[in-house]
């Protein structure tokens, strides 16, 4: 871990982080303000009219409590895809572009070891993900407390976000690992974002109907069941599996980075 490099790498993404944070805040506030226990009925009517479409976006059951509502409308799709965009772009800037453009040569020409460089970049990515999660927490809790004071089950909400953090870390691990393996910038970003988007699509398909339900076994998103967590059914094992997979991919990325030929 090298602080100078961390600072530089993190600040490189400040504009992107601000934009994603603004979009996150907007969605949090808009969706939460739509919550109305009475209105739930009319939404349910809408859902009954086009169940497949709602189901694809993870909105199966609007729920009666605020946390169920949030889990359905935000954690099924938006809060997965939006941070994924952040992760893909940040990894591209941290790992892929320095190889592609050759600026990595300057780092390798300093007394900072390869393993330190790789670990610093992994920490920068995880830190960025963590910041996004904390921002989500702040926005959602803030909006809930102002609009519906006392309605949000904070403890469950924290569990929900710890699950999301593990899922996003897995995305981060996959992206940084692929960025380290491929020297070509198109492949480095393309393969990982392709895999992650495929996972999201598979989950959407698996929720549409019974014939496609088996697809859920092909995507790690199944391990993060936001609806169940919101209903108070939190189990550690799937979340731990996400975390372990994430550690595996980050580790592999660092390992490859230390051994690789960099023609820079």
């Amino acid at each position, binding site marked *: 871990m090298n602080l100078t490099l961390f600072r530089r790498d993190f600040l490189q993404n400040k504009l992107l982080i601000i934009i994603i944070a603004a979009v996150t805040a907007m969605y949090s506030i808009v969706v939460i303000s739509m919550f109305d226990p009475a209105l739930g009925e009319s939404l349910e009517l809408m859902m009954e009219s086009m169940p497949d479409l709602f189901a694809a976006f993870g909105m199966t059951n609007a729920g009666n409590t605020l946390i169920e509502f949030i889990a359905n409308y935000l954690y099924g799709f938006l809060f997965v895809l939006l941070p994924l965009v952040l992760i893909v772009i940040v990894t591209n800037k941290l790992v892929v572009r320095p190889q592609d453009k050759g600026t990595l*040569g300057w780092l390798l020409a300093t007394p*900072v070891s390869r393993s330190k460089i790789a670990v610093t970049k992994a920490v920068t990515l995880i830190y960025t993900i963590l910041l996004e999660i904390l921002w989500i927490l702040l926005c959602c809790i803030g909006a809930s407390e102002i609009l519906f004071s006392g309605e949000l089950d904070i403890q469950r909400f924290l569990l929900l976000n710890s699950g999301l953090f593990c899922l996003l870390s897995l995305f981060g691990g996959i992206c940084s690992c692929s960025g380290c393996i491929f020297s070509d910038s198109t492949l480095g970003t393309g393969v990982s974002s392709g895999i992650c988007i495929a996972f999201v699509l598979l989950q959407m398909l698996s929720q549409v109907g019974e014939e496609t339900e088996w697809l859920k076994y092909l995507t790690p998103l199944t391990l993060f069941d936001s609806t169940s967590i919101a209903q108070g059914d939190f189990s550690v094992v799937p979340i731990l599996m996400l975390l372990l997979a994430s550690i595996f991919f980050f580790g592999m990325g660092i390992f490859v980075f230390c051994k690789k030929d960099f023609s820079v």
Partner: protein
Amino acid sequence: MSNIIHVSHLTKDYKKGKGVFDLSFSVGKGEAFGFLGPNGAGKTTTIRQLMGFIRPTSGTVSINGMDCFLQAATIQKDVGYLPGELPLPEDLTGEQFISFIAKLKGISDIFYAHQLMQRFQLDGKQKMRKMSKGTRQKVGIVAAFMGQPQIFILDEPTSGLDPLMQNEFIQLVLEQKAKGCTIFLSSHIFEEVERTCDRVAILRKGKIASIQPIDTLRHQQSREFHFSFSSQEGATVFYQKMGGTLQEKTVILLSGKEQLPSILQMASSLDICDLSTKSQSLEDTFLAFYGEEQK
């Protein structure tokens, strides 16, 4: 003289004849070693292995007795590196980049860096993306020299610099040499190497063709002389005596410096009206010496 850089049977095979093959040489402490070769000869591939960016297919390469790949980070404490192509982070200014690299290198005193910036008239407030090739090169020079390392690895260092700055750079290299630093300089320009280096390796198609003291090479370096005569007869007589190539009233001669007096005497006895010289490119020089047998 102890060896600082030691390369033994170094091979990096990129297939299809690309790469470097079975290179062996050593650079002693305080020596300036030139690495000459045309584009694509394998100069940068060799330097990447010295820097620990890539691993050799076979053979060993070490600096200060340490393996260049495995102990790269330790080696870098003593090395100043100036790459040939300078990809700089576009979003930083020259000053920001220099202070970033200084921190990574653990250089706390950037007084010398500022001196270098002044010396090369580098405006540090400019964003890198707006810089010309020459200005970027200056940023690279400051970054490579500011830590006052003992070893310099320079890859085509003067490309993009104007003649005045090229001269300043060569002075800087000579000062380091006088301080006892070891210098490894790759180039495709003979003059650049001639002015700084003690020994020169000539690289061609990934193999070392020869390693010679610079003086030997300097004597072998020949020039093209274009003798123009006012009459066709003069040109023909000169051509018959001296050989070379006859083009209308001009005779083109390839010659070393030694034969020059006798050639000039000959030319002045005829009706010479113009004389121009052209330095040979490295490739030409190379072909002139090794061409026939190498082909």
